[in-house]
């Protein structure tokens, strides 16, 4: 008869371990693994929630490739990435580099830069949306008008809308990246800088030959992290273009918004699931490429 009392200490601890893990394993299987599997399965089916679920093979993917809106959305998603990641990387590095050399009121300055990270994207999207309104409502256009520059219809222009939506996303993420960069800068041993000082090397050379190469792990982390964020942009776009989500003329629509509309406005669950699989693959490929490129160099 196997009872708890007769077990060795090691066996008892194994029993405890599985007891601790029982509920979590159930959770991760039911709430993470099964839904992932379900999303893949659904992407090969057609279902509008009411009728029957029917197998359609690759139809959803074929439809996606032939959908001009998808290609527009695909391009937008990458524009968010290709503008957002480099801009926030350079800005946060420059600020962190200088902030790192400040002693006086360091904590206060750091707090100013970090504060936007603590805000809710929805709340701030509405604030920026207000900034972008035309005269006499919007702040930016009021300022432009007072200097005598013509009005810009930020959110109603197909060229301006995407950068206008991207700006608050970059703004909100900057503080996080600055903190990470400063931690990376602090981790570089002082002795490298002292050796460079004795050799009389200019600060520019120090920056390119010592600081940036030693900062590579930090840069890799920030690039991967912020890329994933920009590829998944949704809250800002949805709240800044509510009259016509992703508009004008789909100029700001990212993939996640298309997924949301396909699934919860049109109730094309299978088609939406196929879009989520594409999003998953994009995230996977972009992260793998970045890890490879940045690690190897």
């Amino acid at each position: 008869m196997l009872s708890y009392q007769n077990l060795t200490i090691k066996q008892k601890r194994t029993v405890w371990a599985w007891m601790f893990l029982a509920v979590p394993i159930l959770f991760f299987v039911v709430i993470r693994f099964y839904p992932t599997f379900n999303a893949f399965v659904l992407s090969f089916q057609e279902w509008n929630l009411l009728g029957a679920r029917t197998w359609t093979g690759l139809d959803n993917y074929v439809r996606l490739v032939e959908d001009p809106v998808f290609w527009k959305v695909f391009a937008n998603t990458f524009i968010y990435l290709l503008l957002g990641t480099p801009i926030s990387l350079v800005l946060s590095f420059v600020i962190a580099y200088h902030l790192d050399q400040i002693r006086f009121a360091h904590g206060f300055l750091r707090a100013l830069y970090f504060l936007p990270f603590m805000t809710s994207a929805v709340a701030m999207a509405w604030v920026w949306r207000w900034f972008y309104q035309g005269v006499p409502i919007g702040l930016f256009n009021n300022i432009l008008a007072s200097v005598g520059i013509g009005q810009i219809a930020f959110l109603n222009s197909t060229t301006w809308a995407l950068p206008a939506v991207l700006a608050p996303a970059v703004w909100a993420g900057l503080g996080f990246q600055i903190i990470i960069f400063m931690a990376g800068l602090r981790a570089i041993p002082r002795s490298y800088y002292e050796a460079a000082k004795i050799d009389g090397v200019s600060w520019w050379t120090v920056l390119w030959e010592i600081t940036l190469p030693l900062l590579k792990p930090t840069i890799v982390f920030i690039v991967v992290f912020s890329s994933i964020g920009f590829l998944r942009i949704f809250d800002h776009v949805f709240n800044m273009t509510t009259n016509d989500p992703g508009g004008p003329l789909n100029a700001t629509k990212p993939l996640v918004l298309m997924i949301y509309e396909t699934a919860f406005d049109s109730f094309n669950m299978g088609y939406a699931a196929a879009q989520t699989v594409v999003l998953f693959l994009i995230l996977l490929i972009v992260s793998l490429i970045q890890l490879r490129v940045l690690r190897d160099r």
Partner: protein
Amino acid sequence: MATLDTGATEIRASSATLLEGARAKQKRSTAQLARWILLFLGGVLMVMPIAYMISTSLKWPFEVYNVSLIPEEPHLENYAYVLEDGRFYNWFVNSLVIATITTISSLFFDSLIGYTLCKFRFRGRYLVFIAILSTLMIPTEMLVIPWYLMSQSFGWLDSYWGIMFPGLMTAFGVFLMKQFFETVPDDFLEAARIDGLNEFQIWWTVAMPMVRPALAALASFIFLGNWTAFLWPLIVTTSSELYTLPVGLSSFGDEADVQWELIMTGAAISTIPTLVVFLIFQRFIIRGVVMAGLKG
């Protein structure tokens, strides 16, 4: 005489280098001052949107379109109006309850899983860890459709449970806590075991207090994440009484002819709590960001 002479030149030379040093120092401190001023201006620019949000929430309708940051007659009427309406109060309570429960649940389970995977040796341990970690690769957006279907068939739509269930445990928290339990020496746990504590008591009374800073950092991330979460609450709720603050604010702003000062008041109501939390726990949160960034 000759020796004196060389001595004088030496003195002159050294005073020259001293002067040069002083000049260089002065130049450096001017540069430092310029750097400080530029960083300060940049920082002020960074908080401008927050400042305008708060300032506008204190303005009367007639001065909303005034660019001035300082309201002519600051007042709290907008807050009174918005809270009297009842909806924002309702959404605030929903957000608070949901963010608090998910934070407590995540802290409990994430650290329990992290501890078990770190301190117990058993077959399958590595597999469980890799399996949990691999869920980090799956974007939430891919899960929301199956979650919605699940909630629909179990009747979880439009309920607190429906909003909360996906966030009751997080793979990121498991990973973070596992890293931190590495710093707890096994000797302490062994001593407690000899004292006759059971494994649960050892975890709760001995190991947990030793990772308090990590728990505080994780708590602030998870709370902030749930407080500002938008996509899933938007999908799972349909009745206004169950909206969280972000979903409520989004629908409020969308209503026709809503005034900007009221939208800014709503935005301020959903932002001020996290700003206050930050100002109080600044050191913890910043250290937490660094820990999470470096370990993750």
